[in-house]
């Protein structure tokens, strides 16, 4: 006779919100414990001190707090850009390239027009060119997806490296001094095109702008017709066509928006913090943002939390690495562990495991 398996898995119809969050918090705690054990094995540091060092590294001083806030804002901004696309089930893995395209355009305007136009006009030009460049980078894969169903995950992924090489090209072409291989700080003396500090805080305007974008994306996906159309296309393209939504138009429109917000991130990075452009301006955040966005279940408000969590861990792990003269990639290992746990925990939210009942109960 065939034996009944030890357990089988059933999809949960719905789960109470507190249960799902309990599972997620448990996953984060388990991940932190494992991260602590890994750190302990590598450094021999007392586990409690590991966490204390991480907290200190992330928020130990006012300066570190602001740096954390800036890093979080940038990561959040990219994650927000991805949100409309992901809700449409358009896997935009090209945020890195779209941010670089925007940053490159902003840097080009900053460099070439810095002395020619008044500062307010320079900002507008930089902002617009960044949006256009990001949108173009986003809409190319969308166009082919809409026309021929070209796989967008792979297409946008390849676009990243084209953007990186284009930045590499311009960085060498415009390097200062010639042949140094880097552009260096743009407009160091005039500070033209630099986002000015507000109340003495260099990053405050960046953070406020990202907060505004958060509200915008939240309203856009929740309360507008566009947002509704995106959700329908994401659920089922056939349903969308049936109720008269122009799927191709929605795909292209949404990716223009997604690319444009990535472009804004590039502008903020160039004008608001780096004041230069390199191949590393996006710094892998385009990829990290995919995880941030997904971990928050495509909800802009939760995204604030998830991006803060990831940035906190990266800063904290970076501090441990510096303290023990270990390689800074330590932060990536910790980030990876956390994401594995949270990604894995989704299973227990969506599915229920039913264990094989005892023989006796069966006979009753």
């Amino acid at each position, binding site marked *: 006779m065939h034996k009944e398996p030890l357990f089988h898995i059933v999809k949960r119809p719905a789960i109470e919100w507190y249960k799902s969050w309990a599972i997620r918090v448990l996953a984060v705690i388990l991940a932190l414990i494992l991260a602590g054990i890994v750190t302990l094995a590598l450094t021999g540091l007392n586990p409690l001190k590991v966490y204390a060092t991480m907290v200190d590294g992330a928020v130990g001083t006012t300066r570190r707090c602001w740096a954390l806030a800036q890093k979080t804002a940038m990561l959040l901004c990219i994650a927000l850009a991805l949100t409309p696309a992901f809700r449409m089930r358009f896997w935009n893995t090209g945020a890195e390239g779209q941010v670089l395209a925007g940053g490159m355009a902003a840097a080009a305007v900053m460099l070439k027009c810095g002395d020619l136009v008044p500062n307010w006009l320079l900002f507008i030009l930089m902002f617009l060119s960044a949006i256009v460049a990001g949108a173009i980078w986003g809409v190319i894969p969308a166009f082919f997806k809409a026309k021929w169903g070209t796989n967008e995950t792979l297409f946008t992924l390849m676009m990243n490296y084209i953007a990186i090489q284009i930045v590499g090209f311009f960085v060498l072409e415009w390097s200062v001094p010639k*042949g140094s291989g880097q552009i260096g700080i743009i407009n160091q003396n005039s500070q033209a095109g630099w986002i000015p500090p507000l109340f003495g805080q260099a990053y405050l305007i960046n953070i406020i702008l990202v907060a505004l974008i958060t509200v915008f994306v939240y309203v856009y996906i929740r309360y507008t017709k566009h947002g509704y159309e995106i959700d329908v296309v994401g659920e089922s393209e056939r349903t969308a066509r049936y109720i008269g939504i122009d799927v191709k138009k929605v795909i292209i429109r949404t990716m223009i928006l997604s690319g444009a917000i990535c472009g804004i991130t590039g502008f903020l990075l160039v004008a608001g913090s780096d004041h230069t452009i390199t191949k590393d301006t996006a710094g892998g955040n385009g990829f990290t943002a995919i995880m941030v966005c997904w971990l928050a279940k495509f909800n802009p408000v939760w995204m604030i939390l998830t991006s803060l969590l990831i940035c906190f861990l990266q800063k904290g792990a970076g501090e441990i690495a510096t303290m023990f003269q270990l390689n800074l990639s330590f932060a990536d290992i910790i980030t990876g562990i956390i994401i594995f746990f949270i990604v894995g925990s989704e299973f227990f939210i969506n599915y229920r495991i039913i264990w094989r009942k005892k023989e006796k109960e069966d006979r009753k």
Partner: protein
Amino acid sequence: MSLVMFLQRMVIQGIPLLFGSTGEIITEKSGHLNLGIPGIMYVGAIGGVIGAFMYETGVGPENMVPALAILIPFICSVAMSLCMGLIYCFLTVTLRANQNVTGLALTTFGVGVGNFFGGSLIKLSSADVPSIALSATSNYFKTALPFADKLGAVGQVLFSYSFLAYAAIIIALVASYMLKKTRVGLHLRAVGESPATADAAGINVTRYKYVATCVGSIIAGLGGLYYIMDYACGVWSNNGFGDRGWLSVALVIFSTWKPDVAILGSMLFGALLIIQNYIPNLTMSAQELIKMTPYLVTIIVLVIVSARNKRENQPPAGLGLPYFREER
């Protein structure tokens, strides 16, 4: 003789990509888009480095036994890539997690592991050496066929490589044969195209997915091992492997999911990686643009394949989708 040099270097550049893409093709044929391949290749490389470093500093370069010098790094590399494959499988197959997110996290993790141990191995093992330079191990790995030099140009182009290079080509050919001609290959393709149908036909979907992903990870990890021991002469440098992992993923599309086509594709990509050194009067900045060509070519192939919509060139239909038996 510079043509001979060019062809040799082209092959050496192409082999890691071939390993990576063969591994990824086998994985994707089971319906799993493993974007963790770049990370797995880093881990495969650092696995070899850790094994070789322990052995070389443990017994000293003069006391090394050739068989062990190859076997220890090889086993370490395979074991670590296998662990990465298992992490990915467990999350995406058993726990049905999102493949893109898991894959990207695996890449972050894997590149982190590679650079972390590459940068901290000396400090962690408190060895008394200035940098990781495993030239002794690398020499064993690079042992070529003895008659290569005697056959002139042909011998140098065809027979001057180390055993891992030939292994890459043999693995690709075997994979191609397996996928096309054997029952196992047919079942694997069925799992990737339509897991529900495969399941109904009595194929153990979970087992096929696990085995395909783990074998794919091991093969991809060997690409990292080849790179570090052969191309880089056993010298680890952080991020030295660069974006070759993503190029391997690109090569999968370029070869339209066929390992035998990937052999030729990897040679072409290898040539594109070094061609800038052979074009006279090229500025540094123009070189950057030439480095873009493999990706550009891949996009063009991707678009053409989707526009022509020929059935045999399409990605597996179930690619990227989790399979849950009770959900139809």
